[in-house]
């Protein structure tokens, strides 16, 4: 016999939610026996960003993406860079009224080529993201998901049909790290990465390197070998610098040499495109042809300052096919 208690099967927490309660994400609530999203069409952050900021370096480079986020997150990373909104209840953060139709209209009006679901954890605004992505495709816009990947398989497979690119934050390579630092577990994230790749979503991986937590050589090698071995050499990897934030304000920022070392380890492990973010490291944001070593895309922070990849995605010097989605960009120097 059923009661008014419901179970949310969206993410691996599988919250059992009684009437007048909400899930771990803070935004899915049981009102009178019905589970509702409190944040559908109610983003708290709306910006036009370069796609490089997501970061996506091999997906429509140099284009702008209409970026939205609601309150809430189903994880609780102690280092969260957007914790003021990700760990907030929706009633505590004034939102915009931006239903899916309006989000698409605004994206087009802003000259964007895509919509990015980002900043917090888009999985918690699943229905809003899904409906917006469907409309975006009709309008000729790509959809980007920037996520920690903590979602169950069924919802992910339904959603992924409408997502063109994803940057998945692989936070560490041990379950203990996920449990201690992130209020989650590792295996569902690995499954998400495999499924997104299986379904043809363009995939890039980010790892935030946190001093003292996941920055020793063994950690970095384990992660790098898993990415190169499981996902393949063509999946770009971004090692991102930790800045003191949220519950770890007394840790130092990640030293640049640690990030440069992580990049070397990942290249050794077989990944062909490895980048460093949030800090300037030599060649850390440079795309080089894996075949001949020619410089293909140079970036200054989030700005593309030079791009030589052909519209069909080939190196102009040796003709090698460069993995990515290159859109309408052509060979040009800027």
């Amino acid at each position, binding site marked *: 016999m059923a009661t008014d208690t419901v179970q949310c099967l969206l993410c691996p927490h599988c919250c059992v939610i009684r009437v007048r*309660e909400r899930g771990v994400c803070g935004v899915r609530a049981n009102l009178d026996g019905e589970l509702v999203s409190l944040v559908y*069409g109610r983003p708290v952050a709306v910006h036009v960003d370069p796609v490089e900021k997501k970061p996506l370096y091999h997906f429509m480079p140099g284009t702008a993406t209409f970026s939205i986020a609601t309150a809430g997150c189903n994880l*609780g990373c102690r280092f969260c860079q957007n914790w003021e909104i990700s760990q907030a209840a929706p009633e505590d953060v004034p939102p915009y009224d931006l239903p899916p139709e309006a989000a698409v209209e605004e994206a087009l009006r802003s000259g964007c080529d895509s919509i990015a679901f980002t900043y917090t954890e888009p999985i918690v605004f699943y229905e809003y993201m899904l409906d917006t992505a469907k409309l975006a495709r009709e309008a000729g816009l790509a959809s980007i998901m920037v996520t920690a990947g903590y979602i169950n398989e069924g919802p992910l497979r339904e959603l992924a049909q409408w997502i063109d690119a994803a940057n998945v934050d692989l936070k560490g390579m041990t379950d203990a790290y996920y449990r201690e630092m992130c209020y989650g577990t590792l295996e569902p994230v690995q499954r998400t990465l495999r499924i997104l790749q299986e379904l043809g979503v363009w995939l890039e991986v980010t790892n935030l390197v946190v001093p003292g937590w996941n920055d020793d050589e063994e950690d970095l090698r384990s992660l790098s070998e898993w990415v190169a071995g499981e996902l393949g050499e063509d999946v770009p990897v971004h090692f991102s610098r930790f800045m003191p934030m949220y519950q770890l304000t007394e*840790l130092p920022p990640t030293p640049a040499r640690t990030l440069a070392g992580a990049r070397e380890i990942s290249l050794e492990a077989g990944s062909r495109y490895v980048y460093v973010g949030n800090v300037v490291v030599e060649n850390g944001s440079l795309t080089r042809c894996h075949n001949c070593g020619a410089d293909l895309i140079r970036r200054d922070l989030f700005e593309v300052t030079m791009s030589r990849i052909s519209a069909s995605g080939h190196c102009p010097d040796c003709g090698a096919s460069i993995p990515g989605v290159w859109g309408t960009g052509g060979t040009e120097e800027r």
Partner: protein
Amino acid sequence: MRPLLDVMLVPALLAALAVTGTVSHAPEDQGPDSTSFIDRVLEMVREAPSWKHPPGELDVSLVRELIEQGILSAHPASWAVPYPEERAD
């Protein structure tokens, strides 16, 4: 609701800082003491109580008011199933 951090972790960090005498962010690329500094911070964090809210109570009257005002939505959520009574208890 606000994270438990506000009431639990910050005082723990501040108390530890009082012991170490450190009052500002540790500089990047620190010298030989950096490892012990990081270890101390990590120890504090590990000893801190769980920080993420479990499924929590809702101020239903407030939420309903915000829904009526159009500030929050009440959009049907997918991927939800009834939970059997015998298991709910």
